[in-house]
């Protein structure tokens, strides 16, 4: 069974930010929009501010900010960036049917 296809699953999403920068605000907004649209009522978002808890960066090997980590459903997925490319974000979160492997790497990059 592909992740996301079970309608009863609860999505657990962490968003790592470093302070309330414009970019982290945008990322959080984008994430919320996507979740409300596609996962209404079955998601939790935990925002982790590394400025307040720098040691938490180690747990999920956070290098870039902002980073989204989908803890559930398994497997863990990570997306970096402000999530402004909704289509790519959905692919990354595997909310839409997954395309053939590695396609996302060749997908056109979001130019903002």
């Amino acid at each position, binding site marked *: 069974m592909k992740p996301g296809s079970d309608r009863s699953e609860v999505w657990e999403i962490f968003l*790592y930010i*470093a*302070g309330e920068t414009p970019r982290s605000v945008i990322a959080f907004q984008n994430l919320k929009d996507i979740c409300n649209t596609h996962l209404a009522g079955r998601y939790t978002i935990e925002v982790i501010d590394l400025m307040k808890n720098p040691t938490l960066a180690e747990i999920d090997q*956070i290098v*870039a*900010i902002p980073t989204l980590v989908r803890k559930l459903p398994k497997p863990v997925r*990570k997306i970096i*960036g402000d999530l402004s*490319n909704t289509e790519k974000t959905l692919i990354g979160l595997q909310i839409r049917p997954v395309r053939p492997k590695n396609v996302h790497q060749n997908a056109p990059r979001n130019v903002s």
Partner: protein
Amino acid sequence: MHHLPSAAQIFPDGGTMSKTTTTKKTPQNQAQRIQKPDKSGIEKAATGIAGFDEITFGGLPRNRPTLICGGPGTGKTLFGLEFLTRGITVHGEPGVFVSFDETAEDLANNVKSLGLDLPKLIASKKLILDSLRVDREDYLETGEYDLGGLFIRVGSAIDSIGAKRIVLDSMEALFSGLTDHTRLRSEIRRLFGWLKDKGVTAIVTGESPESSGKTREGLEEFISDCVVYLDHRVIDTICTRRLRITKYRGSLHGTNEYPFLIDEAGFCVLPVTSLNLTYPASTEHVSTGVANIDRMLDGKGYYRGSSVLVTGTPGSGKSSLGAHFINAAALRGERSLLWSFEESEAQIVRNMRSIGIDLEPSIKNGSLKILANRPQILGLEMHLAIMYREINSFQPKCICIDPISNFTSAGTVSETKVMLTRLVDLTKSKGITTIMTYLIRGGMPGETTETGISSLMDTWISMSNPEFNGERNRLLSVLKCRGMPHSNQVREMLLTHHGIDLIEPYLGPSGAVTGAARKSLEASEKALAVEREIKLLRKKKDLENSRDLTEARIKMLRSRLQTQEQSLQPEISQAKSLEQVKVEDRTRMGATRSSAPDHKPQEQR
């Protein structure tokens, strides 16, 4: 484009604090920050890596990033780790190691064999090992981002132990992990600026394809202060590692390729050109270990800190002479080092015992160290690097290298000469008296060495054991000895049960002779002397005899005279009495005639 948050924004405390002190680097306030200005004017952080601080005149630029680049397996990671561990143990500066391609456990295990105990340093809160894996598989990039996570992790690590040093190994893994290289570059540039402001000295490693001298991702563009290039080359199946400082802004530095070494004692760079002819000259003498040879050298022996060459044919006693010197030094309590390239330690100890030298007590009490290996196992520069390291760690006063002639099997003749020149300069600059033996092939004239190194040497002792009259005898002479009067004699040397001994020169009618010839000549001279003695005795006896004879003859003649005298005596007395009778008769006759005028006839008479 979104505005990137600056370091100050991410770290309101640490970032801004250091920012206020260091952002504007005008020459004036930069000068104020310098504690120990050297000629070059920039402050440096000593790496503690043997030799490296010498070629850079003090170490890496403090509070700036340095790029260490090189091919795979050239020792970049180890250089970084040495920089950190020495920083902790020698200079008291805690450090952070961020690995982008190895886990912390792997790293600690990998360097355990090189004498680095990372877990201990980590436990004492002096070192932080952090591994940051960035796999492209794990990430999807969408939209704007920055490396704030990296900044935070590095920043919290630095702040938690008050780190002064950091190693980022290797940044290039980020390039393969992240697709947006434009962003990555600007973030890396920002990272270096931020590290500068935090006051940490950074090492960044970078992979560079074989011998290109440039890193794959062009990290050089971010690091304008110092770039070190590591390399290892295999020539004739022997691998030599080399290091070159390709750039060091604002500082003098050695520009050559320097050999370096990685082994159980870590990283060691040989600062070859930092050696020059400026060493002091001692007037102190140091014994050769053989009293009679000391006597040939102004009665005192070699000069301390001089280089001594002992050449000789096989079996002429070179090693023994070297062992004498080393043993005497060790017994005086001077640390001494014996490098053997032909015999194992056990063999040397056994063999020297046969001539009455027991090296074992000195080895046990630590005043003598024997290092034995084959010259072929390493390149010349590696040998030199090992010697450099051993000399620095053991701090010997006397060294014997036995022999230097077979270094030619690890390199060409000219390379060997260069290597020996460096070695001599090294030992001289440290005031170490060095004796090097050199095997001369049989049949070669005694006054040439293949590598032409005699000009490097202050004292040259030539030994040989020529065959003459069906035997070989060892000869020793002093060919040269700079700065002191020395004997011009070729002396016969004996290897006895109590060491080397020189015999007083024996000068026969046809020059000095040795061995059995000397003995036979001595014997024949002795015989002649006995003969002379006998002859003399005989002559004495003859003389005595003739004296006796003469005296006897005199006696005989005297007695004959006496007999003659005795036999004539009655006759004489008879004649005398007859005369008397005649006179009396005549008187009587005259008296009878003169009673008449008979006086006249008597007067007529």
